[in-house]
């Protein structure tokens, strides 16, 4: 199958800052493709360029064969977009939002209403079709946006941080729907996230940091790259433990969750040797399979800054619920 998204050497500079730095990748048809990275890594900038909202300063990209610079209208017909922040009109009803979108995208009159009904049904909003969106919760709004993004039968659906600020139930339902879209309609789903569990659920993940793609593969293969297991030890003097581990075993330890962590081939066999050889006081040990977070930390040398992100999540979810919004 031909790739539905082809990107080569794409770059975007804002003055002195290079937000996206010469990235290249392909996304296949009916694939769930994830962009994982901290805020400010260039994920949204990349999506904005692919959605023709922002002109690249270098490189090129096509979606469904349409060039993002030469044929933006072609690209826009090919894609559906769900933005990070709400873009529904809360004074209109759920159905009116979809009908408006259908008209704007030149859908045939006889297709608009059945399609709107069908999508509202799929996202579980059919009973609320005629209610103004202002009465909707954040989760309902997001589901409505997903439905709207799909109105005009796009072949690629872009979801920019689709589940930020949503409750776990809504997150699960959006994911279940995304998978069913891929399986039953062959829609390619291109999403950005800074949640590890969401990245794990993607068919392939591109890890992005400082505007560059530093790794791109299936979540399993990315984790397999690290090899073996993650061993963590903790004691009163973690600095000392790290020094000892580095000298005795030639591994590169890192500090995480008040513990010293490093990767080894066979965690189970390594543990007795470790405990025999090490002289500092050890209060706890653990072995686990590597996660994408470990991949990220190993490749970038820093964490994905969950704390900072979750503050922003709270703000965003409040905004989506309509608190503190100026009229």
């Amino acid at each position, binding site marked *: 199958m031909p790739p539905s998204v082809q990107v080569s050497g794409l770059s975007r500079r804002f003055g002195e800052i290079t937000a996206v730095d010469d990235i290249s990748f392909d996304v296949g048809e009916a694939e769930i493709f994830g962009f994982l990275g901290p805020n400010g890594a260039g994920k949204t900038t990349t999506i904005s360029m692919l959605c023709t*909202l922002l002109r690249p300063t270098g490189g090129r990209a096509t979606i469904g064969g349409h060039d993002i610079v030469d044929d933006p209208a072609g690209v*826009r017909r090919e894609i559906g977009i769900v933005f990070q922040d709400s873009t529904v009109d809360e004074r*209109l009803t759920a159905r009116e939002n979809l009908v408006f979108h259908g008209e*704007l995208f*030149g859908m045939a009159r006889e297709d608009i209403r059945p399609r709107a009904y069908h999508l509202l*049904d*799929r996202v579980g909003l059919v009973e609320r079709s005629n209610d103004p969106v202002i009465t909707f919760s954040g989760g309902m709004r997001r589901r409505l946006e997903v439905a709207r993004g799909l109105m005009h*039968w796009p072949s690629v659906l872009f979801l920019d941080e689709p589940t930020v600020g949503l409750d776990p139930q809504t997150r699960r339902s959006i994911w*279940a729907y995304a998978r069913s879209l891929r399986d039953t309609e062959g829609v390619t789903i291109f999403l950005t996230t800074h949640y590890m569990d969401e990245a794990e659920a993607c068919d392939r993940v591109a890890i992005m940091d400082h505007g560059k793609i530093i790794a791109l593969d299936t979540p399993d293969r990315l984790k397999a790259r690290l090899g073996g297991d993650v061993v963590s030890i903790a004691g009163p003097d973690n600095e000392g433990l790290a020094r000892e581990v580095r000298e005795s075993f030639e591994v590169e330890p890192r500090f995480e969750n008040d513990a010293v962590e490093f990767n080894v081939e066979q965690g189970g066999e390594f543990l007795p040797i470790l405990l025999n050889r090490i002289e500092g006081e050890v209060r706890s040990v653990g072995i686990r399979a590597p996660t994408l977070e470990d991949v990220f930390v190993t490749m970038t040398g820093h964490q994905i800054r969950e704390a900072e992100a979750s503050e922003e999540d709270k703000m965003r979810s409040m905004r989506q619920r309509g608190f503190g919004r100026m009229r």
Partner: protein
Amino acid sequence: MTVDQATVATETGARVATGRARPETGRANFLQVVRVIWMREVLIYVRDRPRMISAFIMPIMMLVMFGEGLGNSIATLPGDIGYRQFIFPGMVAMIVLMNSVFSGVSIVTDRQFGFLREILVAPVSRSAICIGKIAGGATIALVNGLVMFVMAPILGIDISLEIVGKLIPLIILVSIMLTGLGVAMGSRLRSVESFQMISQVAIFPAMFLSGIFFPINNIPAWMDVIVKINPVTYAVAPIREIALSEQLSALPADAPFQITHVDWFGYTLSTWEEIGIVFVFAVAMLTISIRAIRTTE
């Protein structure tokens, strides 16, 4: 919303029901876009009850305040044209002016809600978006202007249906000119507060120095310059000339020109010439607003 076998089955069923899995979505034609943007503006207006109600209260307030209060202290008008009768067409122009310019705020609120992005990412012509917005704002302004005529008999204003019919196309033209200004402003300003401030700064001189409240034939020279470059002047004059055509024709030959028509260095413009100037301004505003929408992000 859980995805189990049952919903997957409905999914397939629904696709069969809609006929095609993925119909080709053609490019929306220009008029379809204009229509849907216009419809949304009007729909939102109709649902906004307080805004609707104030449209009916405004004219009464205006006429009572200005007609009675100001009228008693203003110089006498020729013939039997009372000040209330004189100011009524001006009030219509004022209502149209305020509604037209303020309608541009919808672009600012669309931007704040994020909805503007939904519109701007659609594969449609920006000119169509702009014309749809202007059509919406102009419709609302026209409706508000028409409310004035509906209220006219209650307010003791003498105006025939025939004259109202003649005024409608002119009011539409004036609304397009002024909504164009509102839309151009709305696509440049980022907050409702700054929009309100700037539109007031623009509306007040445009309103007071346009002949809405007093005849412009006997004013200081510096004021005369502003009045003559004010586009609203050329809108107020023909509206008043048409609205008062019966009363004005009863006056002595040269009197009507003194209180209504715009005068350029001794040359008195005819009603049609004034309308022509409004038309030129309307085309200019339309062009400016389309350019503003095209380059907005």
